[in-house]
């Protein structure tokens, strides 16, 4: 299955470009069910350059989470190739860091103990270097003094900060984030989205960010991939040409609104296509 780019939006990079951190080529995934097979995603091709922040946006159930899980190696795909940092996708790579909508903190562990869990899974001893790094990161995400608290003693926003600290502590080169702010209240979400933007700018971090929030995608991304549904495929890539650092003032700019409008236009196109089918 070939690429199916739609609209006038441009394809920012070609998939075979060198230096891609993540590369998907014609990826398809079909779920078998009793009532037949369902194409979750089909012909998904895109790349993420080293240090690039790419968002994947689309309606619920369009398969954007499936794309993320395929890249993480958490689920298999039947068609196409997925390359992450030069190797086929597989789970258990410490170069890849995951974050979900839920913080997924273990309630019987303190925040600090949750942070060193990845190293326990890797089978590595938790030495002073790691402990110090954990302490620094807790400080950075604003949780200094909360390291010995249990997750249920923290608010929703603080829990997601702890999850971010756990993601950072293994120093992955690619972040795969699945709607990490979606479960937070609006005020907390707005605070965190700018903090995240600043963090990723400073670290020149490679990120795939799955979201259904247009503003979030525009604030954070270098490029926004818009997905259609049934079956899920990438319909267009909308480049976000806004200057960095991205600040709160940016949200009220004309450019910000225009890029948002363009994304809305492609999303509407995806809806009408789905309606035809």
């Amino acid at each position, binding site marked *: 299955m070939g690429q199916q780019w739609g609209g006038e939006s441009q394809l920012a990079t070609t998939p075979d470009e060198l230096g891609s951190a993540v590369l998907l080529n014609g990826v398809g995934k079909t779920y078998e069910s009793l009532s037949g097979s369902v194409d979750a995603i089909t012909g998904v091709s895109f790349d993420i350059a080293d240090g690039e922040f790419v968002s994947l946006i689309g309606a619920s159930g369009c398969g954007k989470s499936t794309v993320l899980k395929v890249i993480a190696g958490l689920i298999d795909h039947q068609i196409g190739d997925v390359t992450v940092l030069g190797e086929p996708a597989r*789970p*258990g*790579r410490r170069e890849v860091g995951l974050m*979900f909508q839920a913080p997924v*903190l273990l309630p019987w562990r303190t925040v600090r103990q949750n942070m060193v*869990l990845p190293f326990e899974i890797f089978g590595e001893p938790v030495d002073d270097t790691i402990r110090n790094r954990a302490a620094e990161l807790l400080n950075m995400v604003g949780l200094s003094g*909360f390291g010995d608290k249990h997750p249920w003693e923290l*608010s929703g926003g603080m829990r997601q900060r702890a999850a971010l600290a756990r993601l950072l502590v293994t120093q992955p080169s690619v972040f795969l984030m699945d709607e990490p702010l979606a479960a937070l209240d609006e*005020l907390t979400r707005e605070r965190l989205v700018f*903090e995240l933007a600043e963090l990723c700018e400073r670290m020149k971090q490679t990120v795939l960010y799955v979201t259904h929030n247009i503003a979030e995608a525009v604030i954070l991304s270098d490029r926004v991939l818009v997905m259609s549904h049934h079956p899920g495929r990438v319909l267009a890539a909308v480049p976000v040409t806004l200057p960095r650092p991205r600040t709160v003032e940016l949200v009220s700019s004309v450019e910000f609104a225009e890029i948002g409008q363009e994304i809305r236009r492609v999303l509407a196109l995806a809806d009408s296509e789905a309606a035809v089918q």
Partner: protein
Amino acid sequence: MSHGLSAGAAGRPGIATPEGPTPTDEPSLIADPAHGEGPPRTVSADSVRRSSRRLGSLVAPALLFVVVIGTWEWLSQTGRLSRFVMPAPSGIGTATISLLGEAFFWEALRLTLVETVLGFIVGAGGGLILGVLIGEVKILRKTIYPYVVLFQSLPKVALAPIFVIWFGFGTVSKVVMAATIAFFPLLVNTLTGLDSVNKNAKMLFMGYGASRSLMFWKLSMPEILAAVMAGMKTAMTLALIGAIVAEFVGAQKGLGILLERFNFQLQMEMAFAVLMILALVGLLLYLIVDVIERKVIFWKGHPVE
């Protein structure tokens, strides 16, 4: 699924304080928890209020107790209630005191306790182990599980006469009965617990490359503990029932036998005294498991999310 905010009042962001964070020269992800996302407020005042409310909630049941016992005593004293049907509360009290002075009572209590606790350990332990095996090993789930469901619908106490034939009139048949009846709550709760282990947490563990055994010990086992302990509370109560029923069917000693004998001799005060002691024993055993649960699962009520 909704997360975070669904955690209740404690998870909601606190009231923002007027002053902002102390400025630091580090730009970064500045977050001052006092600003919008504070930790839940302390609960000391709440807990004081709660304990006084708990004390208040005891008034109504205590009042009911006085009224019921008073009426009962009055009905007995005035001859409206036959002592062969319902002996007077005062009579039961006297009988209990005299029973506590008898060596045969303590011997019976000791035996029934041993049967119950041994049955609980064997049955609950077996249920937990088989539950984990069925839950974690696919082939076992396919082959054994249908039979488990089939056997579960059998009223287990109906097996008591058979167990007496198989294992005799001694302690063993009682332990086997108690174990059989204590087995299923653990099995079922372990299986349900394993089925409902948080999917995101599983994915996180897989993402970091966790092996199946590591995932079991570091994620599944602690997570199913709540369900396991709930199963243990049920199993403990059921084990006592199992032991008593097995004693009824055929035994020489035990609280069940004592109860049966007093009943047969129409010593109703004594029979009721045994009954009351049995209720207390059951409650005590339950409370022991309950205390252990509180100590072990300090995060109770806060699942992985």
